[in-house]
């Protein structure tokens, strides 16, 4: 029954019996989670990047042509509106889109893994699949959906260089409210555990709605949007779709790798076999998420 703590998967291994709550039972699961987060984020970002490259880039090119047309019409001097062509060609920026989303996916994967490890540090042995789905749904609301509802994505050509600092603060504010808000939602869900299910779920829904409403205490986006409504709607839908795709792929990879790690441990030493089997028995079931 000798197990090296340095082996990549061992920190998540259920390695002691329940009758010995020594520090060894809480051996850190954080490094394998970091690996899963990086892989899930990289693949999720790549999926979102390729999706946008195919569907959103034609729209962005169109928006930039419209922007140039507007610039010629109104102020030939151009100013802020001509900077898009200066440093990189459009094709480089197309590649930059995919690379930016992959890098963002990797970084989000790391932060996701650390948050996931912190939230589940008391009980690192739950079924990883429903946990990954629930955590990704919360993360999607926190960093994608809620900020996008308050400050919807704008195509190239929208956005004043003079207000970018203010808009960044607002956007960061929306992300921070989203993240803290989903943390609050989780706390409500955990603390109302002994209460009846309808009360618990109702309280979660009301809390989420209040967090969303709180976003409107932030100032409005000051910039005009001088593009056609059709282009704007299409761009915002594609932006949201790429977020959804990233988180869906992320959840599938992160949860799938978690299940794989549990399965790899199934033929574990005798004192851990019960734990591993109890998690394995939950495959595909709708086990409660803790």
């Amino acid at each position: 029954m000798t197990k090296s703590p340095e082996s990549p998967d061992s920190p998540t291994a259920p390695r002691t019996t329940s009758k010995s709550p020594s520090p060894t039972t809480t051996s850190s699961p954080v490094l394998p989670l970091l690996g899963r987060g990086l892989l899930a984020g990289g693949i999720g970002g790549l999926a979102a990047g390729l999706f946008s490259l195919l569907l959103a880039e034609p729209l962005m090119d169109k928006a930039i042509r419209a922007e140039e047309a507007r610039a010629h019409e109104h102020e030939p001097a151009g100013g802020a509106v001509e900077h898009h062509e200066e440093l990189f060609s459009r094709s480089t920026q197309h590649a930059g889109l995919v690379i930016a989303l992959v890098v963002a996916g990797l970084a989000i994967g790391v932060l996701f893994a650390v948050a996931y490890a912190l939230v589940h540090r008391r009980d690192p042995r739950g079924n990883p699949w429903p946990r990954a789905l629930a955590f990704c749904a919360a993360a999607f609301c926190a960093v994608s959906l809620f900020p996008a509802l308050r400050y919807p994505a704008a195509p190239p050509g929208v956005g004043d260089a003079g207000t970018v600092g203010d808009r960044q603060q607002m956007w960061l504010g929306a992300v921070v409210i989203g993240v803290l808000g989903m943390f609050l939602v989780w706390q409500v869900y955990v603390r109302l555990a002994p209460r009846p299910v309808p009360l618990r779920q109702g309280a979660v829904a009301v809390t989420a709605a209040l967090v969303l409403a709180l976003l409107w205490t932030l100032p409005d986006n000051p910039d005009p949007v001088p593009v056609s409504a059709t282009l704007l709607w299409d761009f915002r839908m594609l932006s949201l779709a790429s977020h959804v795709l990233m988180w869906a792929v992320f959840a599938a990879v992160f949860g799938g790798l978690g299940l794989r790690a549990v399965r790899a441990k199934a033929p574990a030493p005798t004192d851990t076999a019960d734990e591993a089997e109890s998690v394995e028995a939950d495959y595909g079931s709708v086990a409660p998420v803790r």
Partner: protein
Amino acid sequence: MSVTSAHGTAHSDTAAIQSATIETRDWLIAAAAAIVALIALYAVFMDNGSLISATGDYLHEFAHDGRHLFGAPCH
């Protein structure tokens, strides 16, 4: 290294200390990774030329389309 409760007290104490050390190390690695991740996100979504200011707005322009698509403020 054996870490099961079936072993003697002295042995499991050593194991406990070693496990706590490993856990501390792992969380430090995680914290470092999180800081790198935040810097990467800043570079991709927030930078307006301050990270590589000498050479211009390269990061912003390279990640330009990604910023617009992700919903990050851009100009």
